């Protein structure tokens, strides 16, 4: 079995026209082909490289990670002498990926990485997550190295990046008992010692995924007496160095049990400052979180795929009333909706990944030379798109992963409620997706300004201009009326000029925008390849009703009615 080769939708995403731009920005005239024997010589060679490496990931995911998922869920990690010991399967998964030289996929070659763009890396996250969503965290935390590569000085890069490529694990240590969604409240103290010129960390972190990782990125208060975000800096600490970081306990969770969630105590832990002081939260953590949100998008799509596969296999196999249950309308409709939501969230995932890829590539280029005015405007354009798409991706894909996992159990009937089938684990694993790296409610907060400023509308208009196959013109007509409903709803809410009211309707407005965007993405995908035809039509039918529902709610809602919702 191979999760990459067996899913043509993935190769399809790698064949997207924007990949040309991404690869050429990333490889800069393929100048490294003479320096590294594994660097590509042209565009086709680069895409072939991505496919070959994803094939290895797909094989390890299907043959090692997936078979381990059940025992990892049961066994979970342990704390022994203040250190985390992974479940046997977790260690085996990590060793296989390390042995295959897959870590550090996006890091520059000079530090031992493969210099892949984010799009194929995000795909690897989807593959690993389909096998085991909990393990996807340990795999995905290599994102941390991205911020080292982007913002740290050369010495720090040389010290840490090659280790990541050799399989050193990472964690991002942000949250504390009193600083969850509100990271400005972080208290862990960083003190600079004038004598040895080293920063020392002291304090407690909580809910730290993979908290006993070897390389830790820590958000800490470096400015004594400060109380807000401007007093926070970003540090990297080496957890192999000594025993100054202790794991106090690991949480007993509903799902993703293989992924150790730790409470940590730092006592005089030596650390290096990454980037500039006071920019910790404002710049570096924001960048880290955007990457992590893309990661949760990939994780969610992987979970949706797993939920779909399980439901489909069961529905074909299970016979009732003399036939397979997949032949009953109530069941096949459920499966088609799961598939449509899966395809819609995957389309959104890779569209977002490509936007992030283009802007990150320009950002890296800007560090080496001055950008031309055209390059600069394109850089800003894609950065805006990435900013606008990341929160709707995170929100929709994680919500759909949950809905799909729920429906997957429903397809299984009573058996799905038992521990005998994977769907119950998938359901538990899915639950965290709408919560961590920013809840769906916080994604709405990040997304709403792109509704009110018209960024989504602009992109929707762009999609509307894209050529599509003539058989879809009637579907596009319906999308155009949905867009009118969107505009009316936005105008109505904006006209209130009432911030609380805008927040109140934000989720509905953001959802309408997301539905329309996903419909357009599926239409363009279906124009390029027939395999998306069904999902494009089914998703549009589903989304149309959702959009009308929200539009109706907003249309008949008077600002002062929010008082009735307030609970005192």
């Amino acid at each position, binding site marked *: 079995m191979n999760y990459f080769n067996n899913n043509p939708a993935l190769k399809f995403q790698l064949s997207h026209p924007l990949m040309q731009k991404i690869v050429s920005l990333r490889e800069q005239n393929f100048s490294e082909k003479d320096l590294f*024997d*594994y660097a590509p010589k042209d565009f086709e060679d680069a895409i*072939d490289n991505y496919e070959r*490496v994803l094939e290895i990931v797909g094989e390890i995911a299907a043959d090692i990670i997936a078979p381990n998922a059940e025992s990892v869920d049961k066994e979970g990690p342990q704390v022994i002498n203040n250190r985390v010991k992974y479940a046997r399967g977790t260690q085996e998964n990590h060793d*296989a990926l390390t042995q*295959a*030289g897959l870590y550090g996929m996006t890091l520059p070659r000079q530090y031992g990485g493969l210099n892949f763009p984010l799009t194929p890396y995000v795909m690897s996250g989807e593959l690993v997550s389909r096998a085991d969503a909990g393990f996807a965290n340990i795999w995905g935390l290599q994102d941390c190295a991205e911020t080292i590569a982007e913002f740290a000085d050369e010495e720090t890069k040389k010290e840490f990046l090659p280790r990541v490529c050799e399989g050193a694990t990472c964690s991002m240590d942000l949250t504390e008992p009193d600083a969850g969604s509100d990271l400005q409240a972080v208290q862990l103290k960083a003190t600079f010692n004038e004598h040895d010129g080293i920063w020392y960390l002291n304090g407690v972190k909580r809910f730290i995924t993979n908290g006993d990782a070897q390389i830790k990125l820590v958000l800490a208060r470096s400015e004594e007496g400060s109380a807000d975000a401007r007093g926070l800096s970003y540090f990297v600490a080496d957890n192999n160095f000594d025993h100054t970081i202790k794991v106090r306990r690991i949480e007993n969770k509903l799902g993703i049990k293989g992924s150790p969630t730790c409470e940590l105590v730092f006592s005089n832990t030596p650390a290096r400052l990454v980037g500039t002081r006071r920019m910790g939260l404002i710049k570096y953590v924001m960048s880290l979180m955007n990457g992590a949100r893309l990661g949760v998008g990939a994780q969610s799509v992987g979970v949706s795929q797993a939920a779909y596969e399980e439901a489909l296999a069961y529905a074909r196999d299970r016979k009732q009333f003399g036939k397979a249950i997949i032949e009953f309308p109530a069941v096949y409709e459920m499966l088609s909706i799961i598939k449509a939501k899966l395809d819609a969230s995957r389309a959104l995932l890779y569209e977002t990944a490509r936007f992030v890829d283009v802007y990150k590539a320009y950002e890296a280029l800007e560090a080496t030379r001055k950008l031309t005015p055209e390059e600069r405007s394109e850089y800003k354009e894609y950065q805006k798109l990435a900013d606008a798409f990341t929160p709707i991706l995170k929100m929709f894909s994680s919500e759909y992963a949950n809905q799909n996992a729920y429906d997957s159990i429903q397809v299984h009937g009573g058996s799905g409620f038992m521990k005998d089938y994977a769907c119950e684990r998938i359901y538990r694993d899915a639950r965290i997706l709408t919560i961590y790296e920013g809840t769906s409610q916080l994604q709405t907060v990040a997304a709403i300004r792109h509704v009110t400023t018209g960024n989504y509308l602009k992109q929707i208009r762009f999609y509307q201009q894209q050529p599509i196959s003539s058989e879809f013109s009637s579907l596009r007509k319906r999308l155009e009326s949905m867009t009118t409903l969107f505009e009316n709803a936005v105008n109505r809410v904006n006209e209130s000029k009432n911030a609380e009211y805008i927040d109140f309707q934000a989720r509905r407005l953001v959802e309408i925008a997301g539905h329309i965007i996903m419909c357009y993405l599926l239409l363009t995908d279906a124009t390029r390849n027939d395999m998306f035809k069904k999902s494009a039509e089914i998703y549009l039918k589903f989304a149309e009703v959702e959009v009308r529902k929200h539009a109706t709610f907003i249309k008949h809602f008077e600002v002062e009615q929010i008082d009735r919702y307030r609970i005192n």
Partner: protein
Amino acid sequence: MSFNIVVLAKQVPDTRNVGKDAMKADGTVNRSALAAIYNPEDLNALEQALRLKSKIGDATVQVLTMGPARAAEIIRESMYRGADGGFLLSGREFAGSDTLATSYALAAAIRKMGKVDLILSGRQAIDGDTAQVGPQVAEKLGFPQITYAEEIIDLDKDSITVRRRLERGVEIVRGPLPILVTVNGSAAPCRPRHAKLTLKYKNAKTISEQQTSSSDYTDTYHTYIIPEWGAGDIEHEPQWLGLSGSPTKVKQIENVVFTAKESKQLTAVDADIEELMKELIANHTIG
């Protein structure tokens, strides 16, 4: 002086995933209907070789395969996993070889490779299931042999210590070098392909593959030539090669339908139950 390991590997039809066209009317395997894969136990053998290489340091792992042009894929697959290189033994003269003719040709090729300290091969291939080629190669070269190896426990400059998996338990034996060892499927699974090695060697080709390749220019980047030997490259007597060197004749093939159920006794310990589970999953009874 460098320690030279040769791994014998075979490209086989994937008989584990058999469709309805798997057999031809004459009872032979329909190779075109099945995907060509790396013989599973040969991968176990390769893993043992790679482990020895990292343990000794100064060692080379070369893979030798006999087959049609497309069997060069076996050499590439081995290099993706860490082998230093390999040789493809290919040509019309080898067609129709049974195990005797195959081992004759392989032994001749190994003689041409120079000093060899250790030959590893899978216990048997999943297409013929004979388990004869490894032992016959050892005989022809005058090497001692250890079969059913599960792990190479130790190696020093003149001997090798091996744990063998036998029907009723394990046995640890030591043998002198040079030697041939056949590796059992219960040995450690082969490591995955390595990303950088895969990208580095993906263009490794035999000369004949390069000539038939569709690209209209010679790719000068990252090319590695896989040596390809024909009958003319090895010392041989023509009558021992291919069909003429193959006394095995298939007389008849029968479909066997099991009538009585085989029984198996287990003790109540977890390890036995786990073994049974693995076995049932492996033979697709469950899962």
